[in-house]
């Protein structure tokens, strides 16, 4: 169930240049059921900035009623969000959308998780849940440069983790699609910038690929038609409520 809640900031820290990890607490967490869902955050009480900011859920701790997001502080809203300190309240609407369904794979299956930049965080919760289900997980995480890398250890604990950097300062030089793996995968999950999603879909064409899309949003709940994308059958999907995660074949990007 979607709730709107003043959640309490538990911690906020810088984990890479301009990348913040923010943990919040509140009963809203109990509704978070699927990795890949997102929350819509009002970063200030002011009318400026006016709109909420969509941010993916990165980690869920049901026992502590806490969840974590990781975001890049770039524009007006996310910079204000980065100023929130422990104990402050943040207005969260969520959980929103449909995430990655870990049910798509069975125990013992092999899953490849490919994340680019700020698309990496939602894969962490997914990888955890896949692991819990006994799925064998491999990660490819693409970043610009060595300094941008975050959560390497956390992913390492969950499965083989290959880092790529555009400048080659760490891991494989190039993009996430530069990595050649000999293994066969039953399912591929990917999240990142649209050009990366396209490249991944091309490289793994014919496979079962799940992608997570981004679009400018108004309501975040499916009411305003801001965030639609076309589908192959000339229909449309709303990224905020039908997605953000789709089977690659479902949508035209």
């Amino acid at each position, binding site marked *: *169930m*979607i709730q*709107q809640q003043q959640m309490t900031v538990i911690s906020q820290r810088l984990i890479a240049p301009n990348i913040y990890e923010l943990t919040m607490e509140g009963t809203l967490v109990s509704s978070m059921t699927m990795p890949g869902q997102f929350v819509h955050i*009002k970063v200030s009480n002011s*009318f*400026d*900035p*006016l*709109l*909420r900011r969509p941010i993916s859920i990165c980690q869920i701790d049901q026992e502590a009623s806490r969840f974590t997001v990781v975001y890049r502080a770039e524009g007006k809203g996310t910079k204000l969000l980065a100023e929130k300190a422990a104990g402050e309240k943040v207005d969260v*609407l969520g959980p929103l959308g449909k995430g990655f369904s870990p049910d798509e794979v069975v125990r013992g299956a092999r899953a490849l998780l490919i994340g680019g930049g700020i698309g990496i965080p939602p894969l962490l919760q997914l990888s955890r849940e896949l692991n819990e289900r006994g799925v064998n997980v491999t990660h490819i995480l693409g970043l610009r440069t060595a300094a941008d890398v975050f959560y390497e250890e956390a992913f390492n604990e969950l499965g083989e983790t290959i880092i790529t950097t555009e400048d080659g300062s760490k891991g494989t030089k190039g993009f996430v699609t530069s990595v050649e793996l000999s293994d066969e995968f039953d399912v591929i999950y990917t999240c990142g910038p649209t050009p990366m999603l396209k490249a991944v879909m091309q490289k793994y064409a014919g496979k079962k690929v799940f992608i997570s899309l981004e*679009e*400018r*949003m*108004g*309501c*975040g*709940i*499916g*009411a*305003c*038609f*801001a*965030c*639609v*994308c*076309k589908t192959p059958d000339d229909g*449309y999907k709303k990224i905020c*409520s039908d997605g953000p995660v789709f089977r690659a074949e479902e949508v035209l990007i």
Partner: protein
Amino acid sequence: MTNSLKIDLPGLHLKNPIMPASGCFGFGREFSNLYDLSKLGAIMIKSTTLEPRFGNPTPRVAETNAGMLNAIGLQNPGLHKVMAEELPWLDTFDVPIIANVAGTAMEDYVETAKEISKAPNVHALELNISCPNVKCGGIQFGTDPETAKELTKAVKNVSEVPVYVKLSPNVSDIVSIAKAVESGGADGLTMINTLVGMRIDLKTAKPVLANKTGGLSGPAIKPVAIRMIHDVSQNVSIPIIGMGGISTAEDVLEFFLAGASAVAVGTANFVNPFVCPEIIDTLPELLTSLGYEHISECTGRSWRKHEQYTGYRP
């Protein structure tokens, strides 16, 4: 207590004068997961056109200071599906529907209005002659008084329910459009639609919206809406449903004092999806604190002699 909010308008017996604005609430399905739609005074459904429309390419929204731009482009499933699926579903709630009708030619408007006005829960039409986001149709009907009048007449001729006309703020003289529409037989006005605006992305040097321009809504435009309602309400004798930047019960009252007899809330639903029920809950107390017994006492009070008038009476 909420008795202080009951309002009668042509075709509409409202338990309260608060309703979501067209295009900001879809057909209510999403919000029905958040609260009971029967709580609302009415619902203005998304603009419906004769044929289904996909709308404009994305990005369709952009944020501005205390406002937002949208260029949805009237995406909707078309008259047939709205009649067959959306309106019957909405009929499970105890809330009158104001059906917003859009088109690209007079005939579209007329045909859509005729059909949709037959739906049992549609208690009024809202004629959208002010959408800035479609190439042809919409706004050109709303900037020329004569055309606006003709369209109103044609739709009045076929509609089974009262017709409200939604005015565009992008005009030199909104009073003359309002009068024209009134003389065309409109039962009421709704105002304002969005102001045409644009944002440009510095990195790409291109407009942020794929459609280039979009409609500006939200708190930024509230003073423009207040001014126009203040001017129009003094020059027509049909009621006005006011909108443009409403986010709080205080805003609602400001619109009433300007001359509105009911209000719609648009953009604020995105910021706080519970805004309509919250306003409905807080409005009675605000009225009391300001010494009013009924919200209708407020209509036009900024310009009326107080003795003279206590709100629109049907």
